């Protein structure tokens, strides 16, 4: 079982998505370096692609988004390896039917996939430990991940998130809902990636 490493970029982007739409449920997927043919024991989540903030439970747009991201990953040595979700209700961080269904779909394509459930109460511009819980599929159920979480850059993550939230960077984030409204909205969020790089 691989250890998990969530980079600053993936960490910040998924939390910024939750911050951008505090009144709505949000979800998205996480991309990892494709190490299926390698000896590496670490699952490194290098990016987060924000998906939706409206009607998370409907499938057509989800399927379209997954098709597009899959095509994007080819040739970049990336793979869809994780799914994140923040629920609408402030104190609700339970994995619901939507999370389990989409999580399972991701897991079918990538065996060691992880499910990230964001704790809304811990999404803020202060230093917080574990703003999300990570689950993996074991014994036909989603359970707390028992893999070691490599967190050498925890401080870096907190500092970057603080800087980003203070500057209102979440407004720049584009998810797939924004993209389907106007295709010029770029779900890769390259400028935001640069901004995050400059924070570290």
């Amino acid at each position, binding site marked *: 079982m691989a250890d998990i490493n969530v980079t600053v970029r993936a960490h910040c982007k998924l939390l910024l998505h939750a911050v951008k739409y*505090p*009144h709505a449920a949000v979800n998205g997927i996480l991309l990892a370096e494709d190490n299926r043919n390698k000896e590496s024991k670490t699952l490194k989540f290098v990016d987060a692609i924000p998906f939706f903030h409206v*009607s998370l*439970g*409907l*499938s*057509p*747009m989800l*399927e*379209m988004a997954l*098709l*597009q991201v*899959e*095509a*994007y990953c*080819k040739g970049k040595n990336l793979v869809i390896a994780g799914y994140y979700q923040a629920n609408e*209700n402030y104190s*609700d961080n339970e994995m*619901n*039917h939507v999370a389990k269904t989409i999580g399972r779909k991701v897991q079918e394509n990538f065996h060691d996939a992880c499910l990230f459930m964001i704790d809304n109460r811990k999404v803020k511009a202060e230093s917080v430990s574990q703003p999300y819980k990570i689950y993996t599929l074991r014994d036909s159920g989603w359970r707390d991940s028992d893999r070691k979480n490599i967190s050498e850059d925890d401080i870096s993550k907190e500092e970057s998130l603080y800087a980003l939230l203070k500057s*209102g960077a979440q407004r720049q984030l584009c998810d797939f809902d924004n993209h*389907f*409204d*106007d*295709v*010029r909205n*770029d*779900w*890769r969020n390259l400028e935001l990636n640069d901004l995050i790089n400059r924070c570290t």
Partner: protein
Amino acid sequence: MAQRVGFDEARTTMKKYREDQIRDSDLVLSLWEDVVSDKCNRLGDELWLVYEQVCTAALDCRRFDIAEDCITCLDNKFPRSIRVRRLQGMYHEAREEFSEAEEEYKSILEKDETNMYARKRQVATLKARNKIGEAIQKLNEYLKSFMTDYEAWNELCDLYLSQHDYGNAAFCLEELLMSNPHNHLFHQKYAEIRYTQGGNENMELARSYFAQAVKLNPNNLRALNGLFLSASTLAVTSSKGGKDKQLNLKYATWAAEQIQIKYQTQQPEAQLKDTKIRECLEKHLDSLQSA
């Protein structure tokens, strides 16, 4: 955030947000605190609408100090107003004082039982406490009396979706479609629900409604995506060489072309190349041909 914005621009922005019902509470508060509040005597009668707007924005951002000030000012100007009392109820809701909120709404309804806002807030209170079943029940009762309230039908649809009761969610959309047959968004959402339900009959319904949405608004990318996916699914499940398969392939191909045109004409070159939408669509179509 809003320091560099002038008073007139702030005023116009806030007005636009009220009219379009845009929920950007952070910005509204920022405009109020940094720009408008000092010069609020220049607002004239608009001041009261602004107080209401700032109050709800403040509740969204948990700035209870600002919310309280707004409610006090409004109460002084409009004593015993039901509209102000509703804000008071929302204040309690935001502080998770749900019994106090419920008291407030009950007493509003005792005074005016046709007050739709108080009744909707009661549903919101149940939703906030995660009592979705009761919220659905209450909203259904509400709609018996106020059946033309589109916002309520939409909310009920979303509540049913959260319980994955697609059948009843579809019913809500059907009500909306009957009263708004030219609204492409309703056709599209209805199609999405049918698509999610799955099964041949639902997929055909989905395809029809996506097609209708495209007809009403050829710019609706979600409807084009939906048409592509539903026609593709039907092509795969139809018998090989059958007429249905050919027709669905034709629809899927057409939809893919429309999607590609949209991307090619609107997206910058670099983005287009990197995100490979064309390859994605072509690969999907190829897999249908061989299925």
